[in-house]
Each structure stands twice: as structure tokens, then as C-alpha cells.
């Protein structure tokens, strides 16, 4: 004979007819005999029926017209982008060094929420960075880095991501001097296309001028160059008129510091996947990327950003904050993983008592974080190497 508590837990499924016959009979019998449980049943039933009776509201009268006009704008934007792509494809052939350019853009990169995750795959730095991303001597004597898959002949022919866009023509002696003095990244490839944060002076390559003219023609405003900040709450903010290049660079950095990238629609970190491009491109000016990186790579990330984007400003996590986050998160994860392990053992031992299992699963889920669903989290905890990882989110504002 089941008690009132256990019967009440089954009422929800009873109302959905999803209990097996014996459990269903037990509930029927119990609520027939027990007035208190019968009241609970009627209460639950009434709520459910009232939910079902909530009627859909009609679309606003102007909904379709507004949507139509929004779609027309989107079509124009898409055509514009495609036309740019075509033009730049021709330019590439002609000049050989153009990357594609998109409209005036801000990409927000949010090192978001600092959600720690235990991943069972340990992210590794490439054993030999120069082997993976070789440093090449340019014709003018400066060094440049190229992605590993590029053939030698293509390394100077302009890459799809535009990394080499500024490297096609020899720089003036003044510009060479400036580049020597400015902070340099793995390749220092951004020098000619970047506003120097300290001096506020714009350095442009001959290609950039033409590119900017194109951008002005397309957008009716003077193009701005790339500037990167990390702000207080760990948002990496990239302002750029060239999102494709900026995105390529961010991807490049993230890969280089030890993660891979995968395009996904939904931002739910899962075991074995390091970075998610969430695809929230509700306009051209933003893109969401979720990347999962170890805390200990944060420093490396800032160094990479700093070298890749001269003028980079880091107002984000300092060493003390980082230590605090790491410690706090580690402790929390240890506490949670111990508790989860304990609960998991209980759950395993108690099968097939579904009620108890359910309670335990509920508690486990409460221990999980908002953006980190329990199943993946449990998986990762159970087989974890014990490393603590952080989620980087590039999200819209």
C-alpha cells in the first residue's frame, strides 16, 4: 500500500495516463479512499485543464507587414554582401591580396559567465607552434604567420580570412619604423589596418585604402579600423569594419591556445566540444560564439589578443580576480562532484526505485549551473581529468 506522499508524486503522470497499469490502479484506488489526496488530484487536474484552455492570442494586425519589410531589408543586405563577395573575388585575382570586407561592424565577444566545466578531453597546446603556424619571411624582410594548410604560393596570395591583407606592398620607412615599435603578435599582421590605441593614429596600407574606399561607397561612412578591449566583466569587445578578418583572427587565437571550433545552433556546452559558434546573427553586426577554455588559458588569451590586435586594452580579469575565480570554481566543483558522486552511487544502488531516483536526479540537477545541462555535466564530471574550464561566450548586446 502506497502512502499519500508517494501517490502525490505520481499524480502528474497519472493525469497524463503515462503510468503503468498497476501504478495507475494504485493511484485510482488511493484517491478514491483518501480525501486529502483526492483534493490534490482535483487541484492538479484543474490547473492542467485551465492551462490547456488558455487560448492563443492573435497576431498583431501589422505583424505580417512589418515582417515583410524586415525581410526585404534582409534580402537587400544579403544581396549587398554577395555583391561585395563577388567584387572582392575579382579584386583578389587582380591584386592578389584582398580579403572580403563586410559592413560597419561590432563583434561582441563575451568571455561569458565564467561557467566552469569539467571536460574529460584535455585541451592541449600545439606541441610546436611554429610547426603548426609557421613564421615566414616576407619579401620586405618582416615576418608573417600563415595558417598551416596554406601552400607556399598562397601564403602571399591573400588568404580567405584576410590575415595577409596588409602585406602585399612594401611599407614606407616610417611605417616600418612604427611597426617595429608597436606591439607585435604572432605575425603582426594587423599593423597596417589598425588604429593605434595610444596615439590614435591610423596606419593604412595601400590595400586598406582601396578597401576603405569600397566600404565608404557601400556604407556611406568612413570605415573604422579594428580595436579590441576586454572589459571588466570579461567581455572581449572587438570593433571592426572587417568582421570576417576579425572573426578569423579570434578563431585562430582560440584554436592556437588549445581548442577546436565547431558551428552549432544552440549554446549548450557538451562533452568533447570545445567551442560553439552559436549563430545568433540577427544582424550583420554581431555573432555569438561560445568557446570552452581552461581558466589557465585566460592569460594566454589576453597575450594572444594583445599581440594579434595592437592597441588591445585589457580591462577585464586581473590576476587576483582570476585566482579568485579559479579557486572558487574549483572548490565548488569539488564540492559538487563529491555530492554528485555520492548521489550517483545512491541512484545506481537504488534502482529501480523511480521515486528516489527522481528525487536524487532533481537534486543533482539543482547543483548544475543554469547553462550547463545535467546530463552532459554529469558525464564530464564522472570521467573528468579534474581540470577546470571556462566558457567564453560571444554574445549579442
Amino acid at each position, binding site marked *: 500500500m502506497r502512502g499519500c506522499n508517494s501517490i502525490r508524486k505520481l499524480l502528474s503522470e497519472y493525469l497524463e495516463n503515462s503510468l503503468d497499469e498497476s501504478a495507475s490502479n494504485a493511484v485510482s484506488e488511493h484517491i478514491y479512499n483518501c480525501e486529502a489526496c483526492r483534493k490534490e488530484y*482535483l487541484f492538479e487536474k484543474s490547473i492542467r485543464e485551465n492551462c490547456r484552455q488558455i487560448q492563443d492570442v492573435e497576431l498583431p494586425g501589422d505583424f505580417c507587414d512589418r515582417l515583410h519589410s524586415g525581410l526585404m531589408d534582409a534580402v537587400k543586405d544579403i544581396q549587398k554582401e554577395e555583391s561585395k563577395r563577388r567584387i572582392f573575388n575579382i579584386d583578389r585575382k587582380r591584386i592578389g591580396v584582398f580579403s572580403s570586407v563586410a559592413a560597419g561592424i561590432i563583434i561582441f565577444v563575451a568571455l561569458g559567465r565564467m561557467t566552469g566545466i569539467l571536460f574529460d578531453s584535455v585541451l592541449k597546446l600545439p606541441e610546436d607552434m611554429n610547426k603548426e603556424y609557421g613564421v615566414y619571411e616576407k619579401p620586405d624582410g618582416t615576418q608573417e604567420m600563415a595558417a598551416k594548410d596554406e601552400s607556399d604560393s598562397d601564403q602571399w596570395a591573400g588568404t580567405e580570412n584576410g590575415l595577409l591583407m596588409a602585406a602585399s606592398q612594401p611599407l614606407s620607412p616610417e611605417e616600418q619604423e612604427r611597426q617595429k615599435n608597436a606591439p607585435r603578435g604572432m605575425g603582426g599582421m594587423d599593423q597596417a589596418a589598425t588604429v593605434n590605441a595610444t596615439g590614435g593614429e591610423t596606419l593604412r596600407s595601400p590595400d586598406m585604402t582601396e578597401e576603405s574606399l569600397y566600404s565608404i561607397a557601400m556604407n556611406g561612412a568612413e570605415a573604422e579600423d579594428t580595436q579590441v578591449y576586454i572589459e571588466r566583466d570579461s567581455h572581449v569587445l572587438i570593433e571592426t569594419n572587417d568582421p570576417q578578418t576579425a572573426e578569423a583572427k579570434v578563431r585562430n587565437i582560440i584554436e592556437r591556445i588549445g581548442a577546436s571550433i565547431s558551428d552549432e545552433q544552440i*549554446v549548450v556546452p557538451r562533452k568533447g566540444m570545445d567551442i560553439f559558434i552559436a549563430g545568433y546573427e540577427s544582424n550583420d553586426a554581431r555573432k555569438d560564439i561560445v568557446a570552452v577554455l581552461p581558466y589557465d588559458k585566460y592569460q594566454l588569451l589576453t597575450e594572444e589578443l594583445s599581440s594579434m590586435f595592437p592597441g588591445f586594452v585589457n580591462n577585464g580579469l586581473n590576476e587576483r580576480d582570476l585566482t579568485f575565480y579559479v579557486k572558487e570554481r574549483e572548490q565548488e566543483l569539488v564540492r559538487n562532484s563529491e555530492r554528485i558522486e555520492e548521489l550517483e552511487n545512491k541512484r545506481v544502488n537504488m534502482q529501480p526505485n523511480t521515486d528516489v531516483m527522481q528525487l536524487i536526479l532533481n537534486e543533482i540537477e539543482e547543483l548544475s549551473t543554469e547553462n550547463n545541462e545535467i546530463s552532459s555535466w554529469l558525464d564530464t564530471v564522472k570521467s573528468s581529468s579534474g581540470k577546470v574550464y571556462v566558457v567564453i561566450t560571444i554574445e549579442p548586446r
Partner: protein
Amino acid sequence: MPENEKILLDRCCTGDAAAFEALISSYQKKVYNIAYRMLGNIDDASEIAQEVFIKIFRSIRQFKGEAAFSTWVYKIAVNMCLDELRKRKKSRSVYIDEAVRLEDGEVEKQIPGEMPSPEEMTEKNELRGIVENAIKLLDEKHRCVVVLRDIQGMSYEEIAQILNCPLGTIKSRINRARAALRDILNPQKELFIGEYVK
């Protein structure tokens, strides 16, 4: 996927807005209603629903057909609503107790979704109103599953796909959401039971 939907989808991939409008015509109302129930007011719902469809149009080539098109549409809609709620949470937490300045003086800002008194709610159709208000008081995670399951009548499997969660997680979340709803409605319990024992 139905053949006609597939044809429209192919045309959408070439940037055909008319095909897109035809394709999404049967989803507009549902997306709008999901947004309305999630966000609690029609203006925000309308705004988000517009954004949802524009986003879908722009990213339609990313639809790989792994799940039903409808599921993909609702997944984007639900995610954008959750994003919006998260944004609101961040910005509102500062202003929740702030008084509102009107031309004729200062009044206390009302917390949205406040429950009507039991006396005000006696008729059956008003019970629906009580439930609607109670749903607004649920936290976003719980509200989401109640809207999808108990209002929109979606299956557990579809909700699991939309929220990208295992079925077991969805089931337990729905159970907890219903328990939370019961807790909110508990003071008016007799009204609900009264429906059956008149």
C-alpha cells in the same frame, strides 16, 4: 519534411523572401504565442517574434534537416526569448524597487505578475486568468516547459529537442515546474477544487 515545405525551403536558401513568408506562415502565430507566454507582454512578443523570423531567414542555410523544421523554428524562438529574459534580469535587478515618476507625482513601481485577490476571481474563465498570472511568476526555466508542454501541448520529445536536453531532464523539469505552479496557486486551491465539487 513535407515535399512542399522542402521546395519552399530550397527557394528560401536562394534568398527568396516570398517563399520564406509562405514557409513560415503556419509558424507565426505559435512563435508569437510562445514569445507572449514567455515574455509576458504583446509588444515584446511581437518584437522578438519578428527578430526570430528574420534570424531564421538569414540563417536558413544552416538548417540541416536533422530535426523537423518546426522544431528548429521553435528552438530559435525559445532561445531568443530566454536570451531576452536573461538580459532583462540583468537590467531589471537594479530597478526593481525603484519608484516610477509620473507627471502627477511618484508612485511605487508594481512588480509585474502580481496575483489578483481570491475575491476577484470566482468565475471559471477567471481561473484561467489566475493560472496565466501564476505562470508569469514561474522562473524562466520552469515557465518555458509549462508553456511548451501544458499550454502549447508539445510532446516531451519535441521539448527535449527544442531545449537540447535529455528526455529525463525535461520530464523532471516539467514535474518541478508543475510543483512550483501548484505552490503559487495553493492559496486559491479551494477555488480550483470547487470546479469539481459544486
